[in-house]
C-alpha cells in the first residue's frame, strides 16, 4: 500500500466515521428522550415519523433555521469560538479509536481505525502508539470551549456555570487519568489496539480476559469520572436548570446552542468507546457463521458494548438526583483520587511480584 492509497483510505474512513457519528449523536438524543419518557411513564416523541424516528431530523432543521443571536456585551470572537472548539475537539478525539481489525476492499487491506496503519506481512494492523494520550489531551482542550463560553457570554449564570464546569472537569480529570494507569500497567502500551489485543482470549471457564475483572475498582473510578467529565447527571451541576437557568450555554441560541449538545453527546460516545476498549475487550466477542459475518461481527460487538454504555448513561439520568457542589468536590478529591492511587499501588505490586508472564 503506497502513501496515496493510505491517505485516500483515510479520507474515506473519516467521511464515513463523521457521518455515522453525527447520525449516532442525533439518534442518541432520540433514544434518550424515548427511554427517559418510558422511565417517567410517558411516551416520548411519537409525532414525527413512526415512533418519532424523524424527530432528530426535525430538531436539526429547527436548530439551523432559528435566529442566531449574539447578545450585547459579549466578547464576540471568543463567543463564536467556544462552541466550535467544543465540537471540533469532540470530533477529533474519535480519530484514534479502533473499532475492529481490518477489512479488505478491492484487494486493499485497511484498518478499521482512522489512524490505523496496516503492517505488511502481519495479520494485525498497527496503530499510532500514543492513542490514549491523544484522547486525553484533546478532550482536555474541550474544557476551554466551556470555560470560554461562560466567560465570553458576559452573563452571570453563564459565568457561574462555566466556573463550576471547569472546576469539576479538571478535578475529575485527575481521577480519570489515574484510573487508566492500572490498565496501562497490565497492557504495557498506549496504543489502543495493543491494549485491546492484550485482552483477547479467555481465562478458565470461558471468562473473557477483559480488564474489567482485575481492574474493577479502576473501572468504577473511570465510570464516575467519565460521567463528571461529560457533565451528565448526577454530575450535571454546570447546567443545573433549577439554579443556573442553563449554565454555560444560557446566552447561546440556534446552531451554536446545539453544538454544545452535540459535543456533549460525542464526548459520551468517546468515553463509552474508551471504557469498551480498555475494560471490556473492545471488539472481541464470539465469532461464528460465514466469513462475511465473521468479518462484520467484531464491529457489531463493539457497537453493542457502546450501546450498553449509552443506555446506562440514560438510565442513570432517569434514576439519580443531582449532587450538591461540595459533595461533588469531596467525592472527586477525597474518595475517587485516593481510590485510584491505591489501585495503582496494588496493581503495580501484584504485577511486580507475579508479572513476568
Amino acid at each position, binding site marked *: 500500500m503506497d502513501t496515496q492509497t493510505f491517505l485516500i483510505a*483515510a479520507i474515506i474512513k473519516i467521511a464515513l466515521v463523521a457521518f455515522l457519528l453525527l447520525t449516532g449523536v442525533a439518534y442518541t438524543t432520540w433514544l434518550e428522550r424515548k427511554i427517559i419518557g418510558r422511565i417517567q411513564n410517558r411516551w416520548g416523541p411519537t409525532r414525527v415519523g413512526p415512533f418519532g424516528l424523524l424527530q432528530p431530523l426535525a430538531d436539526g432543521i429547527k436548530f439551523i433555521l432559528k*435566529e442566531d443571536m449574539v447578545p450585547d456585551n459579549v466578547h464576540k470572537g471568543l463567543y463564536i469560538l467556544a462552541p466550535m472548539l467544543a465540537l471540533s475537539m469532540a470530533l477529533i478525539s474519535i480519530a484514534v479509536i479502533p473499532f475492529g481489525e481490518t477489512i479488505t476492499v478491492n484487494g486493499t487491506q485497511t484498518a478499521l481505525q482512522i489512524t490505523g496503519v496496516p503492517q505488511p506481512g502481519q495479520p494485525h494492523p498497527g496503530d499510532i502508539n500514543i492513542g490514549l494520550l491523544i484522547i486525553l489531551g484533546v478532550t482536555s482542550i474541550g474544557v476551554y470551549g466551556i470555560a470560554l463560553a461562560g466567560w465570553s457570554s458576559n452573563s452571570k449564570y453563564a459565568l457561574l456555570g462555566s466556573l463550576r464546569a471547569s472546576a469539576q472537569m479538571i478535578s475529575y480529570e485527575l481521577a480519570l487519568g*489515574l484510573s487508566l494507569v492500572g490498565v496501562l*500497567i497490565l497492557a*504495557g502500551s498506549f496504543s489502543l489496539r495493543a491494549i485491546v489485543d492484550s485482552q483477547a482470549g479467555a481465562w478458565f471457564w470461558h471468562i473473557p480476559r477483559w480488564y474489567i475483572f482485575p481492574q474493577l475498582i479502576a473501572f468504577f473510578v473511570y465510570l464516575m469520572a467519565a460521567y463528571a467529565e461529560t457533565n451528565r447527571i448526577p454530575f450535571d451541576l454546570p447546567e443545573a436548570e433549577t439554579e443556573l437557568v442553563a449554565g454555560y450555554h444560557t446566552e447561546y441560541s440556534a446552531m451554536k446552542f446545539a453544538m454544545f449538545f452535540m459535543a456533549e453527546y460525542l464526548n459520551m460516545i468517546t468515553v463509552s468507546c474508551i471504557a469498551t476498549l480498555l475494560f471490556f475487550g473492545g471488539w472481541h466477542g464470539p465469532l461464528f457463521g460465514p466469513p462475511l459475518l465473521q468479518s462484520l461481527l467484531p464491529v457489531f460487538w463493539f457497537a453493542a458494548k457502546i450501546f450498553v454504555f449509552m443506555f446506562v448513561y440514560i438510565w442513570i439520568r432517569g434514576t439519580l438526583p443531582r449532587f450538591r457542589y461540595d459533595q461533588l468536590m469531596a467525592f472527586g478529591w477525597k474518595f475517587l483520587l485516593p481510590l485510584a492511587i491505591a489501585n495503582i499501588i496494588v496493581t503495580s505490586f501484584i504485577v511486580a511480584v507475579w508479572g513476568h508472564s
Partner: protein
Amino acid sequence: MLDNNYFIRYLPLLIQVGVGIALAAVMVTLSHLLGKHKWTPAKNSPYECGITPTGDAQGRFSVKFYMVAMLFILFDVEAVFLYPWAVIARKLGMFGFWEMLVYIGLVLVGFFYIWKKGMIDWNKPERNEA
C-alpha cells in the same frame, strides 16, 4: 509499501483535525446565514430572569476556583509522570515498584497537606484575615 516515514501515520489525524474544525465552522456559518435576524435591545441583553441586568458579569469570583485550578496543574503533572512508568512497569519489576512507591508517597504527602489545609473543602468558610 507505505513510506518508511513515521510522520505519515499522523497525517490522518491531521486531516481529522481539519475536518473537525471545518464542520464546526460550516455549522456556525450556515446557522448565521439561514436564521433570521431581528435584534432588539431587550432581546440582546444578557438573561437575568427578565429584569434589567445589574453590573458587569466578568467581575470577581471565589478564590476557590483558582485553588482548584492550581491543584489540578500540580497533580496532573504528577499523574502524567506516572504514564511512562506504567507502560514499562512490567519490565521494571520490583525495582520499578519501589521507586514509584517513593514518588507516590511524596505526592500523597502533598495531597494530605492540602486536605488538612482545607483547600478541597468546598464548604469551609474562608479564613478571616484579621
